[in-house]
């Protein structure tokens, strides 16, 4: 704010009085708007592996891991009719649990006015639970036993996460980049995108969204992707070693990877297309299912 004022003063010397007045009024109104975007910054000392929860309606939530035994939270709201409640347990000493919840004081508040943005730096080992109805959630560089993110329409993006990740949206897209550990991602109409996972277990399901998996399969890993009508694309390197079980009822199966094909036992699903085979030594297990979408397995 101080820098802003200084810049405005310099400009005033060069600008005629009338225009200066207009400019002044504009700045004033801008200041009033800025004052409504109240920003709060808090720091909490935490015990090892704290639990942090955030419940929000709209706005962006960004969470990053860091190496301090503290949660550093910065949140801002657009409207003065929006409050953020913070609950710390226990109330004294390092926190085991911290809850952030956005409350709408005016039930008629709608749209952008409901917005609250959060930026949290949390210790490694923090277990997160985030619900952001129509806003996006972004998690970066975190290691945790357990992290849950739920959204209705907001997009979810998680990168460089280690631990058990559970992501669910109704319509938002889900992107998971370089995860390690276990990943579960579910959506109804949103797309799922997995990039370079090094996971022991990966589950992804969407009804009408698309699934894109780019990367290798870990030795001993278990990968299960399911869609109803959307298309699924698997892009893996020539060195990927996996057993494949792919099945679709009405859709198509397209495979570009050289595989040792296994003959299928008689199946009651006479209309199903299925592909059952092994690429290289079959160290990972890959289960792909679709009802009417196309499944493509391609070499990267």
């Amino acid at each position, binding site marked *: 704010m101080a820098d802003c004022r200084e810049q405005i003063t310099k400009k005033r010397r060069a600008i005629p009085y009338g225009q200066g007045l207009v400019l002044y009024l504009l700045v004033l109104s801008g200041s009033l708007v800025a004052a409504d975007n109240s920003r709060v910054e808090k720091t909490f000392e935490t015990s090892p592996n704290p639990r942090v929860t955030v419940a929000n309606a709209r706005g962006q939530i960004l969470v990053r891991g860091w190496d301090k035994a503290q949660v550093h939270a910065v949140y801002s709201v657009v409207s003065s009719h929006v409050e953020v409640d913070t609950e710390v347990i226990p109330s004294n000493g390092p926190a085991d649990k911290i809850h952030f919840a956005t409350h709408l004081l005016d039930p008629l508040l709608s749209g952008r006015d409901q917005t609250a943005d959060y930026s949290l730096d949390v210790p490694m080992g923090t277990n997160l639970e985030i619900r952001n109805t*129509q806003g996006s959630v972004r998690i970066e560089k975190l290691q945790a036993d357990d992290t849950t993110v739920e959204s209705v329409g907001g997009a979810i993006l998680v990168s460089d996460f280690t631990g058990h990740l559970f992501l669910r949206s109704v319509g938002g897209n889900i992107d998971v980049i370089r995860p390690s550990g276990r990943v579960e991602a579910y959506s109804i109409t949103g797309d799922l995108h997995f990039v370079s996972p090094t996971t022991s277990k990966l589950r992804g399901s969407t009804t009408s969204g698309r699934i894109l998996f780019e990367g290798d399969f870990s030795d001993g890993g278990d990968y299960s992707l399911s869609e109803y009508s959307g298309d699924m694309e698997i892009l893996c390197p020539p060195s990927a070693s996996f057993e494949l079980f792919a099945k679709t009822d009405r859709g198509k199966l397209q495979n570009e990877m050289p595989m040792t094909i296994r003959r299928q036992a008689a199946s009651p699903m006479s209309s199903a297309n299925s592909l059952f085979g092994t690429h290289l030594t079959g160290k990972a297990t890959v289960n792909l299912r679709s009802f009417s979408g196309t499944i493509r397995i391609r070499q990267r």
Partner: protein
Amino acid sequence: MNETGHGRTAACYRFEQELQAYMEGEDAAFVPAHARECAFCRVIVEDLEALRAAALALPLEEPSPLVWSFVRAQLLDDGTFAERANFGAWFRQLGWLHRPLPVATFACLVVLGCLLTVPRNYPKPGNTSPISTLPARSAIRSMAFMRDSATLVQVVRELEATFRAREGSLAPDLKATYENSLISLDASIRECSDSLEREPDNSLAHEYLLAAYSQKAEVLSSALEFDEGR
């Protein structure tokens, strides 16, 4: 060469006779001794040992979350659970609900519990109309769609009716998201039902149909949370 090929000798016959005992850990020293000399018999032993190891290593499977929903609903109906003092504290203590099941599914359980504690008419298996009264216990016993899908369909129907009555209060963009998801799920329900009519044994269609109904219940419950001001 006989039909099984590869020159079966008298020793190989004895090997086959004693193989079962050997695999049971009984005294059958002839089996490993012969296997060292006979490549064909050695492969048999190695195959069976590999099979046994693989069987031990089979991972555990995860049932659908609806299994617990039905169990809980039935136990509620039985009056098995003691009364709770504080509703909020109970919910917070259910750590297993925080991750695997969203709050939306919990709302679905509450609705299901309410439905089952009040006398209802459930369609008898095989009947399409008119509906007749069945005890709740038999009505929720089976989740297999071809035998008795009435309960889950009924729950979804009730949730959808409530949603339609209240959807006007949702924010437009939120409502649009829910509507799109319901359109998508309804399409999958229709297609899977059509498939099952043509191919009753189509297990893939069966699985997708069940999944679509349970997802629809979760989506509707989630939407109803907002209307209740949560």
